[in-house]
């Protein structure tokens, strides 16, 4: 269907109706979260449910921030940014090595990388946990961050494929100018890879920000908690003020939502790329 709707208004109207219905279904949980987050505790339990809170309790957001704790937000930022930067560095360098360098066993090694991409990380979470225990990295930033950075097989694959497409002539010219591989990497390869770097960075940030299982396993004290853990705890609690809980949920979504509005295109590209993983 390439955007050609016949002049007959009936199917067109149907399309619009279905599209709007679908959009509503997608939006309602978000709108409801927003609505609940601004209600007083008593209005939250009002029946029939009200959409527009009266009064509007902006203070819920302040309460939510204090309830979750600034430290938790900080941890999520530290975690996500570290993963993006470290994994980005490691995977681009690795991709460059597989694409442009010649060394013994290169292609065989790459096949092994590809092979492990097929193993879901949940299969190895138990032994990885034991490894982290043995390294005495439980409940520490390295233990939290590095095993996730290590899950860069897909990124390495992605960058290798992309780097292979950069014409040899450009590299020849650089080599004639006396550039060694390190300089080629920084001055030639990376600047030409901005689109794929952006998409990869955005999708990796999203994944790290929303990661739940691994932090749940590794983090044992409140000082290292990340946002998904805090939200899960709030959701499970019974005596919580639901309005504040929903405000906390909104706060947790906010950075991603902002990124989404700014750069939806990169997200979509990144998601389509990660679809290639399988």
């Amino acid at each position: 269907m390439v955007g050609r709707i016949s002049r007959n208004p009936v199917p067109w109207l149907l399309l619009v109706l279905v599209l709007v219905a679908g959009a509503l279904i997608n939006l309602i949980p978000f709108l409801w979260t927003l609505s609940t987050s601004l209600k007083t505790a008593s209005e939250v339990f009002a029946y029939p449910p009200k959409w527009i809170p009266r009064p509007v309790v902006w203070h819920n957001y302040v309460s939510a921030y204090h309830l979750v704790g600034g430290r938790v937000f900080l941890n999520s930022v530290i975690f996500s940014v570290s993963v993006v930067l470290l994994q980005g560095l490691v995977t681009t360098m690795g991709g460059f090595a597989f694409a442009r360098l010649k060394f013994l066993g290169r292609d065989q090694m790459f096949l092994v990388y590809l092979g492990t991409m097929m193993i879901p990380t949940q299969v190895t979470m138990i032994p990885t946990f034991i490894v982290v225990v043995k390294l005495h990295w439980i409940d520490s930033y390295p233990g939290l961050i590095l095993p996730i950075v290590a899950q860069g097989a897909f990124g390495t694959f992605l960058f290798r494929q992309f780097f292979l497409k950069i014409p040899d002539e450009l590299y020849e010219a650089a080599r004639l100018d006396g550039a060694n591989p390190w300089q080629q990497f920084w001055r030639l390869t990376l600047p030409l890879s901005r689109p794929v770097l952006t998409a990869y960075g955005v999708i990796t940030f999203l994944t790290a920000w929303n990661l739940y299982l691994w932090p749940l396993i590794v983090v044992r004290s409140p000082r290292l908690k990340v946002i998904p853990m805090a939200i899960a705890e709030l959701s499970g609690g019974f005596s919580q003020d639901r309005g504040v809980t929903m405000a906390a949920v909104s706060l947790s979504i906010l950075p991603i939502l902002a990124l989404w509005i700014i750069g939806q295109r990169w997200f979509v590209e990144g998601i389509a790329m990660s679809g290639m993983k399988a």
Partner: protein
Amino acid sequence: MESLKAIPAVKARSWVRPSMQRDWPWAILFLGPNLVLFAVFMAYPVFYGLYISLFDWKIIQPPRWVGLDNYIHFFHDPLTPKLIWQSLYYAIGSTIPLVALALLCAVMLNAVIHGRYVWRGIYFLPLVTSPVAAAAVWTWLYAKDQGLINYFLVKLGGSRIDWLFDTTWAMPALIIMTIWKLLPFNTILYLAGLQEIPAHLYEAAAIDGASRWRQFRDITLPLVTPTTFLVLLITILNLLFGSFDIINVMTQGGPLQSTNVFIYNIYQNAFQYFRMGYASAQAYILFVVVFALTVVNWRLQRKWVHY
């Protein structure tokens, strides 16, 4: 000629083109960190996990060798059939709508010209929220007395359901939420697949007088099968391995084990009951089964995927 005979015989395999060796110092620089991290946190754990599965290991005690007992116990455990049934229930119950609806959405979104990015922006929103955040929201939506869902249900003439606490309805509740959450991802994949179909095929069909339904059935459906294959694969993997977050936040496998699936039980065994060895065995069995299914699906491609 004699000098040639003096050269010791070398197996053909060990002779490598010199050009394949020249970059190895750079290779160590570029690939080193990647390789070390990969070896320590990905490659080694794969084998170590298998090793662990041969022991009975409650973390506080040293591991005790049991050989294949964990695997044998798996087949005799009364929970196992329940886990199998519920994992299948969840996987198939979610996958069919996730594939069919995604194609439908992609077709619709593809047809929209005006405000295309706004429509897509809205449709893809569930994707960017964390499963935990979405699960927290939907837990509230499913609340028996104040939840929105029951409110609409009652308005439509039904009676209230205590969704997440009812053994019959907990799993459907999870399935509905999963469909909401994962649909955008599949839609993106289908949209990409639809772009690959050449426009002139539709034009030719339209000229021949084919209705849009026939165009869909005879052009779109067959030509989108490669994407369908990809979507099926990704969805099943996502459901079987990635559903932990949702289950832990919404039902914790309950009520009465009615929403317990493999990936959740593995976590329970490892980190709540501290039966590391058994959990490891379960993880590997799950992986092998899924891998086998993937291979089977791959082979079956020939029958139904048109490239």
